[in-house]
Each structure stands twice: as structure tokens, then as C-alpha cells.
């Protein structure tokens, strides 16, 4: 096991990773920007290095500074958390060149799984149902023919896409020609590659993802699913496991498929396979996240397995110490994200307690929320025997959470939890106006 790990991140996830390290007896190095010098993750770590200015590009995205900090402090591995450098193959390769272990997949895997077209082929070859669609199109006429074959509505997407750019929803044939021109131009401007492809539009749909873990000895397990359909503008707000829309039979079948796919890909590390679940209970593979996810905590609460610790152990070459049979998915766990909706300085914090209530946060009294980074300041997670009990517990806990001095989305979240559609479990991506 590594005796010292550098955490190349900030906020609640840096705190989360440092905690795992402390339990494992691993010394920690925090990195921070000039705006984060007094942050909780800095106070918690054994050592810290200020690596640059408040702008992320100068600090948390500054590859060379982070590598230097790791080498100077004698860290043997770097945990990238989520966001920032967590999916950056160049950074992972830089770690290798410097004799540092990147806690995450190999750079080659990141490149392979980050390329949408290649991933789709790979997923299909691994037996996952992929959204019906075309390869890169040559002309609007070809698009028209393909769309007719797929059946409207269809989505026009950029091959090199991401972040919602170069995407058009087409409901009828007469919209296609104009949308094709726009999407291609947007794709060219955004990604330097104007090629586009068509995909069947799945609607209405739920976002259901599957947590997998695989070691370098060929073992792989699936830690169940997470329903992340409560999103606003593609930002997840509430996540739960197991998904109320997935039956036991569907779950068993998908878990088997996910494990088989991960083994076939030769993937090593923690990963998430993201699917859309349509109104007819069919799963459609979207993409794979090759890092720790924000919502990993619900999986931890339900299964009792510490995803972060296992990530670190896998990176150290330790075989998974459990098999699929050891994974129990009984009960229900729900997470509610607490986002800052403005800047401010925390004057008072009261954290809800009681059994099976967890609050992952970077908040400490006197801390200022700056405009430079992600708005997530905490995650409230509860677990109970049944979904109904978990919903009640989350509502009660959310009412007990007090954050003064920083405006948050707490009340908005409370209203969402009180929405009848959420309580019943019958909701999809359209609940918050997505779609």
C-alpha cells in the first residue's frame, strides 16, 4: 500500500478521500489554490501545498504544479477525485512518466472509452444495448434517409461532442436540413470537427447508471444501480439506489451484462456505465465514466462497500476482497445535493444526525464560498430499510440542516422531495424540465 497519497482536488470530495486515507493509515498531501488556503481539506491533510492562483487553470488544473507537489512531498500516488484532472489521459500519462500512480484507469483506457464512436462499437461488442443510430454522416440527404429508417424523433449529435454542443432534436423530416447545417457548423466551431451522426431519441427516459469495480487480476463486480433522473439543465440534484423503476429481474440481468462488459473491456478501477431507461423498460447504453462519481455515496450506504478505499486498493494492485455474491442491495439510499446559489461566508452550520444519516461536506464556520469553483458544498445521504422510510428520513434530515451565511438550494430540494411524483418513484428526466 502507498504510504502517502496526494489528493488533486478540493471541496467535499478532497475531504472524502482524505478520510479514507486516514482510515487506511495513509499519509495525505492536500493541494490548494490561493482561494482555498483555509479550506477544510487543507486542515485535514497531513501536509499541504498551495499550487497557484484561485483560477482552476492556475491551480487544480495545473498538471506540472501538481506533479511537482507530489514529487517534492514524496507522495507515491495521486487521487484526482472527480472533475478537474480525473478524466485527463495526458495527466495520467504524466504521472506514469514521473513514477507516480494515478488512482484511476490507465491513460490508454481513458482515451479508448472517451471516444464516443469507438465506445459505442466496443459496448455493442460487449453485449450492451446501444441507442440505435448511424456512423458519421456525409450529407443532409443521407441523414434524411437514415432518420426515416430510425423513425422520428431523432437526435443529431457531433461525433466529437460533449457539453450539449452540436446537438439538435429533430421531430419531423422538414426540420432536418436546417438542423444539419447548424449542428455541423456548431460542431466545427466547438470541436474542430464538423462530422455529425444520428441517434434515436429516447423519450421519456430515466437516467440509470451502474457502478462497477474491477481489479487488475480479472475480478469485477457491480455494486448496483443509481437513478439520477432528477436533473436540472443536466445537473443532477437527487440520486437514489436502487432505482424504483428497475425490477429485480431487470437489475440482475443488467448487472450481469455490466460485469461481463467490464471484464471484456479489460477495464481496471471504479467506473460507471450510464444508461437511459425508456418507457418500455428497455435500457440503452450512453457512456462510461471512468472515475469516481459525486453520487458514489448512495452505493456505499446501501452496499456497505467503501468505493474510495477500494479505488486506492485496486490502484495498489490489491485484488477485490469480495465477490458479486457479497453485494447486498437490500434497502434504499438517497442523496440530496446541497449547492450554493450565491457567494457568502458561513456563519453557522448545523449538521443533521441520527442513525444512517451522512453529510459529506467541505463547509466549516468562517469559510467563504468563492465564485471560482463548482457550487456543490455538501451531500446529504440517508439510508433505510424501505424507500418510503428513506424519503421520510431525508425530508427530516434536510429540515434539520442549517447553513447560515451562504444561500443554498435547501428549500428548493425540500420542495422536490415533497413532490408527489418523487414520493411515488414515478418520475423521469422531464420532472425538472429536462427533455
Amino acid at each position, binding site marked *: *500500500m*502507498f*504510504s502517502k497519497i496526494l489528493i488533486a482536488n478540493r471541496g467535499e470530495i478532497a475531504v472524502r478521500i482524505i478520510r479514507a486515507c*486516514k*482510515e*487506511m*493509515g*495513509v499519509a495525505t498531501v492536500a493541494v490548494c489554490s490561493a482561494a482555498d488556503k*483555509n479550506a*477544510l481539506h*487543507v*486542515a*485535514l491533510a*497531513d501536509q499541504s501545498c498551495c499550487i497557484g492562483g484561485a483560477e482552476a487553470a492556475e491551480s487544480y488544473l495545473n498538471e506540472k504544479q501538481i506533479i*511537482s507537489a507530489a*514529487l*517534492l512531498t514524496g507522495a*507515491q*500516488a495521486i487521487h484526482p477525485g472527480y472533475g478537474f484532472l480525473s478524466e485527463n489521459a495526458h495527466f495520467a500519462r504524466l504521472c*506514469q*512518466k*514521473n*513514477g*507516480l*500512480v494515478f488512482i484511476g484507469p490507465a491513460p490508454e483506457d481513458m482515451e479508448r472509452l472517451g471516444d464516443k464512436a469507438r465506445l459505442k462499437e466496443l459496448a455493442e461488442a460487449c453485449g450492451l444495448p446501444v441507442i440505435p443510430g448511424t456512423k458519421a454522416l456525409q450529407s443532409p440527404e443521407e441523414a434524411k434517409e437514415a432518420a426515416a429508417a430510425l423513425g422520428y424523433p431523432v437526435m443529431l449529435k457531433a461525433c466529437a461532442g460533449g457539453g450539449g454542443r452540436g446537438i439538435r432534436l429533430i421531430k419531423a423530416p422538414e426540420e432536418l436540413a436546417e438542423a444539419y447545417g447548424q449542428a455541423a457548423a456548431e460542431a466545427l466551431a466547438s470541436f474542430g470537427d464538423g462530422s455529425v451522426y444520428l441517434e434515436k431519441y429516447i423519450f421519456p427516459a430515466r437516467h440509470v447508471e451502474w457502478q462497477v469495480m474491477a481489479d487488475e487480476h480479472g475480478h469485477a463486480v457491480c455494486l448496483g444501480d443509481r437513478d439520477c433522473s432528477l436533473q436540472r439543465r443536466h445537473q443532477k440534484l437527487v440520486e437514489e439506489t436502487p432505482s424504483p423503476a428497475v425490477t429485480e429481474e431487470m437489475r440482475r440481468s443488467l448487472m450481469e451484462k455490466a460485469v461481463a462488459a467490464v471484464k471484456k473491456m479489460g477495464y481496471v478501477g471504479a467506473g460507471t456505465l450510464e444508461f437511459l431507461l425508456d418507457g418500455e423498460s428497455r435500457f440503452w447504453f450512453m457512456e462510461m465514466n471512468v472515475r469516481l462519481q459525486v453520487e458514489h455515496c448512495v452505493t456505499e450506504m446501501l452496499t456497505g462497500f467503501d468505493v474510495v478505499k477500494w479505488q486506492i*486498493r485496486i490502484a*495498489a*494492485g*490489491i485484488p477485490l476482497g469480495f465477490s458479486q455474491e457479497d453485494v447486498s442491495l437490500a434497502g434504499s439510499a438517497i442523496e440530496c445535493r446541497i449547492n450554493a446559489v450565491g457567494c457568502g461566508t458561513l456563519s453557522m452550520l448545523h449538521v443533521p444526525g441520527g442513525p444512517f444519516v451522512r453529510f459529506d461536506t467541505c463547509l*466549516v464556520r*468562517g*469559510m467563504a464560498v468563492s465564485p471560482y469553483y463548482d457550487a456543490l458544498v455538501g451531500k446529504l445521504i440517508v439510508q433505510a430499510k424501505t424507500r418510503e422510510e428513506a424519503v421520510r428520513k431525508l425530508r427530516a434530515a434536510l429540515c434539520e440542516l442549517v447553513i447560515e451565511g451562504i444561500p443554498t438550494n435547501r428549500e428548493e430540494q425540500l420542495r422536490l422531495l415533497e413532490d408527489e411524483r418523487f414520493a411515488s418513484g414515478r418520475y423521469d428526466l422531464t420532472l425538472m424540465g429536462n427533455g
Partner: protein
Amino acid sequence: MALIHFLKPKNQLEEGGRTAAPVQRDDGEPEKNCPNCHRDTPLSRLWSELLVCQCGYHFRMKARQRVLMLTDGGSFEELFTDVKSGDPLEFPGYEEKLATVRAASGEEEAVLCGTARIDGQRCCLFVMEPYFMMGSMGSAVGEKITRLFEYAAARRLSVVGFTVSGGARMQEGLLSLMQMAKTSAAVKRHSDAGLLYIAVLTDPTTGGVTASFAMEADIILAEPGATVGFAGARVIEQTTRKSLPKEFQKAEFVLAHGFVDSIAPRSGQRKTLSALLKIHNGGHHHGPDAL
């Protein structure tokens, strides 16, 4: 707001697995051993780190490599390339030595002179070449540097100079010693014209170069760990019969004793130099355009 103080848990380190990863390198990639930390580093990585080891040791750098690192792309225009050393004393073996060194280093002389932009700031630049007889100063080196200061004074440009030298070139005898006075006079005329001269002393800067233009700059910077001195430490010990402090003649020691103004690590040199030049140029414009 002060940092919160937490107690540290005394959990034993979990067992099993690997403790570290080997440095990955391309097949057959040459590496360099660091004389300070004794670690091997692949050359490609060393290059990307400006020839600075992860322990902070600054390897010697070829003059042209330094020009590339320091100046804005394509802005370096070399001057006085026709000035070359002869063999006025017919010193035994000097001609052959020059021929070998010229072939090996790819340079005609131990200093590169020219004009360049450093982060947008125009200046005259000279960079001495450690791989040309350890940057020793013969009549050609002295002449090129003298001409550069005269050129800069005529065009009202600042001079930035990187020194590395074992001292005067013994094969040219008195002629090389005379270069000390000649270059010093040129520096003085440049200075009297109210112009800025910044020297960056790199490892090693010794002998006649230290005793002349290296130490005559308005602002004297030094690379970390560089040896800066006149006579060698061993010679001084043998002469004075006294043992010298451990860090004697290291840049940091020289700084502590007031001979240089600051230590400038390689990674920040471009920024430091451009900032100094900018201040001298009045803080805004990019220096005289009449080049």
C-alpha cells in the same frame, strides 16, 4: 480565519499491494543521472522540465537551448557571427582543439549574441556556451560581448546576459586577459548611457568572467546551486591553508554575502526577466523598436 487543528489518528498502514510505481519511459530512451539526488531521469522529461531535475538540480544547458527556452518564438536574431578566435600565439594544439570543439558543439564561439524579445520585451541578449571550452573567454568572446554592449548603447536597448565560464582562455594568454578590461569598459559606457544590464550567473561562473562583466550588471541573478567565484575553492584552500564552509561559492552562499541580488530558478526566469525589462522600459511599451 486560522486553520482548524485536528488530532491525527494512529491507524497502521494497510498491508498488501505495491508501494510505488516505476518511472515509465519510452523504449530505449536515454536518461541522465542527477549528481545531486542520484536518480535517473528520462531525457524527454528532463527537456520538458527545462533540464531541471525533480530535486531542483539545474543541469547545464546549451546556449541555443536556453535561447529557445527564454525568447519569444523566432524573435532571436543573431549578431556578430563572423567574429571567431584565431591562434595568435600559435599555442600548441589550440587549432586542433578549436576544430574539435567547433565540431562537437556546433558553435563557432563560446558565446551567442543577438537581439530578442523576452515575453514581448525587446533586448540584446548574450548567452555563453558551456559546451565550448567551458565558456572560456578568448579575444572573440570578449569582442562579441563588447560589440553587443556598443550595439545596445547605440540603439538604447537593455542587455540580458547568461554567463557560464571557466575564466579566461589560457591558450590566448594576455590577449584573453585583456578582454576583461575591454568588456568592462563597454559595460561602463552602456551604463553611463542610462541603460539596464541584467546578468544571470549559471553554473559555473568563475575566473575572468566573474572578475569582469558578470559582476558588473545592474541586477545580478543566479541560478540555484550555481558555482560563482573567482579562484577555485581547492586553490583557495591550498593557498590559505584554511578549510572553507560547505556551501562556499554556491549561488545561495554568494547571495547571503551580498554578491548577487536574487536566485532565479529556471522555470521563472522568463517571467522575472520580462518583468524587470518592462519596469525599466517604463512599465508599458515594449522597448525601442529601432532594431
